[in-house]
């Protein structure tokens, strides 16, 4: 369209009155992203300091933690968020659970992004038979129901925290691989890559100096957006009983353990559910904002 030929964007070369704000600065300017950052930061701080701030041992079944009839206590002055079916303090379990859930979220997602990026870049940049084989394998994995795969893997190995991490990574890398593959493919066909070849640049140089920097924003965005999906998947797995094994608390298995009391003690499901949603939402908000900030089409517009 002729809009594109309309006035050339004023080259930003003119004396910029101030340095454009960095990524963090731009994040802080967006209210939603700021909210997300604050929530994430708060959860991380609480998780790290959990051993010192918990009012009770998360696995201790306090003798006054149940009513005389043996049902959980509602939130009160002693147990701020109430107690669970075994008379354990819910707040303490949630704080300890944050450690598990965050660890799984970050580790599993990190591994998923690493595998996905590697597969995507190799297939996209080098192509050929290896690339085709890798991408068909990715398609296969994508077509396989994720939960079924997770259940099979969890059944084969004895469930433990690191197995859960591995299972989630195995399920999640495919989407990253697809996206990175497409991006690498289109990058590899850009004219400046051909220009580099014309200058005599080898594959390694082109890959590391001219392709990877362009993929960085995608990787960073997936690194944050993916954490929310991972946390939710951990909750799902734990809910199905193939995730983190009791008595270790994780947000997912807290809900799983207490689901039968949902009608008589709704807080047992409400509070862990709330923090899961809050964390997932926060990572989504930050990831969205990062994607906008790092989007190359926004370059030069600040």
């Amino acid at each position, binding site marked *: 369209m002729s809009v594109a030929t309309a*006035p050339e964007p004023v080259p930003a070369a003119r004396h910029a009155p101030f340095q454009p704000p960095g990524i963090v600065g731009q994040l802080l300017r967006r209210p939603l992203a700021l909210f997300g950052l604050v929530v994430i930061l708060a959860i991380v701080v609480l998780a790290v300091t959990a051993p010192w701030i918990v009012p009770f041992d998360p696995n201790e079944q306090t003798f006054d933690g149940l009513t005389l009839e043996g049902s959980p206590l509602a939130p009160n002055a002693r147990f701020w968020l109430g107690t669970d079916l075994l008379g354990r303090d819910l707040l303490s379990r949630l704080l300890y659970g944050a450690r598990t859930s965050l660890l799984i979220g970050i580790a599993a997602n990190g591994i998923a992004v690493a595998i996905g990026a590697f597969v995507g870049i190799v297939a996209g940049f080098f192509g050929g038979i290896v690339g085709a084989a890798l991408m068909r394998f990715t398609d296969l994995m994508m077509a396989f129901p994720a939960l079924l795969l997770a259940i099979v893997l969890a059944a084969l190995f004895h469930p433990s925290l690191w197995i859960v991490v591995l299972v989630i990574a195995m399920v999640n890398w495919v989407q990253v691989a697809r996206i990175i593959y497409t991006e690498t493919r289109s990058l590899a066909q*850009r004219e400046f890559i*051909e220009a580099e070849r014309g*200058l005599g640049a080898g594959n390694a140089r082109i890959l590391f100096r001219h392709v990877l920097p362009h993929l960085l924003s995608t990787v960073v965005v997936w690194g944050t957006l993916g954490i929310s999906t991972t946390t939710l998947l951990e909750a799902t797995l734990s809910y199905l009983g193939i995730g983190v094994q009791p008595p270790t608390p994780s947000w997912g298995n807290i809900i799983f353990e207490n689901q039968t009391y949902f009608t008589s003690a709704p807080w047992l499901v409400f509070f862990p559910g709330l923090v899961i949603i809050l964390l997932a939402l926060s990572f989504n908000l930050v990831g969205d904002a990062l994607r906008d900030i790092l989007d190359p089409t926004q370059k030069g517009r600040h």
Partner: protein
Amino acid sequence: MSQMPATPVLSVRDLRTQVATPSGPRTVVDGLSFDLMPGETLCIAGESGSGKSMTALSLMRLLPEPMARVASGSAIFGGRDLMALPEEEMRKIRGDGIAMIFQEPMTSLNPVLTVGKQLTEAILAHRDVGAGEARKTAAEMLRKVRISDPERRLRQYPHELSGGMRQRVMIAMALVCGPKVLIADEPTTALDVTVQAQILGLIRDLQRDFGTSVILITHDMGVVAEMANRVMVMREGRVIENGPVAEIFHAPRQDYTRELLAAVPRLGAMTGREGPMRAGTVEPVAAGRTLTNPAPLVEVSDLTVRFDIKGGLLQRTVQRVHAVEGINFAIRPAETLALVGESGCGKSTTGRALMNLVPWQGDIRIAGRNTAGLTSQTMKPVRRDIQMIFQDPFASLDPRKTVGSLVGEPLAIHELASGREIREKVAWLFERVGLSPEQMSRHPHEFSGGQRQRICIARALSLSPKVIVADESVSALDVSVQARVLDLLQELQDELGISYLFISHDMAVVEQISHRVAVMYLGQIVEIGTRAQVFEDPRHPYTKRLISAVPIADPSRRREHFKQLEGEVPSPLWPAGSGPERVRLTDIGDGHAVALNA
């Protein structure tokens, strides 16, 4: 014109358009006023950023609001001020009263709807007729824009039509409701010269038949001279000069208009000269370097490039694109060989084959080295002798790197320098191509088109090559910028004795800067010779057609009748196992070779 001293169809007063920038609104059209008379062609000429496209969008009220808006002014059309009309009313005028055609015929047609559907939609939006009637009108309109077999075309999708045909469909769509004003924004810029001539002729004929007034926006002074009654020269949003076409061309009052006209290479301006001429001047190039050394620097023989198109269940090769089909040429030291032809003729592929960027067959020798079958590692030493400058200087520079590191990169790749040495060499190169070394730490998007092309030239120069392949290297630039970049290229040739393979579709530029010219058609060279031989004594019918199709920037040499060519350019696509007939070049004296059997 036999019209009454009529009232203007469109009367624009003090139009001011602003776009939003981080540092507040910027005025891109500043106090524009003009009257458009019935049946008149008004050309708005200017370089990129002059506000000519913004003017068109303002008049159509198609500005991308709220990023851009009309700040003040009026445009009276049919007694009403377009700038004050509610959107609802304006929509009725668009297409019916004022129609517009855009530069890119591919992107302005919807690819998922048939031509017929889009044409009838345009009719039904403004006329209270039935679907059958609308379809008949559509077919009638296609016939008027000289599209053969209109009934069949109506059922086709845009991708099934060639570029020229698509632009004709756009024109049919614009004129189908009989608008009083047609705004054409660079309607032929994306088209080949022979197709351009057809489209310009068509617009002129239709204008005569329908009595439409035309506002033609173009950067091409040749098109202006060919089409305009009146010309408005714009620069930085203001009208610099406004007058009848003859006056603008023969007695320009403003310096800017004079510069603009001087920068335009004119086909035929070189008649009778031996060597090339420096761009934008009448000075012949320094005759210092005589071409006595006949040993060619680059020798290409029987170069063939074919791309397989696989299909069917077994992914067998079913068709082949015969992009380049057995061509031969040589480039001598300090010589410019131009490769001309229209899109799809294989000229760019030839350049890429020389750079070993596409698989090819045949024989290429560069500075004595045979490059057949070289891998990217073994090709590396050859790349010091041959470098390439691409068409789009923005696409060929990595947007995330500083320009200094981009220009210095070849030195690092070939381990010719390191650290400080690279910086010093890059600084020198920057100065050499007319940029300041302080700009080294900037990114490509901070530069204008011409500056970016200088950066690309600096990068190509960093290895001190003997040959540079320049693939449409000045086509994307404004004429004045183009003249300066061409000047730089010629200066470098005088100084360093570089040879160029200058790939271009622009006959006037080619005539100006080349020593020898090769004309390509459908993957084969049909005529090759010195500049004088090819331009002053063209023998092949295709060469003649190319030369005659170029609009000349001189209204007194306006062609009354464009030669209308029937049919489309044949395709270089052949079923596997067959191929085009090879042409045989016959030397008709002094190295002027022509394909006589085609």
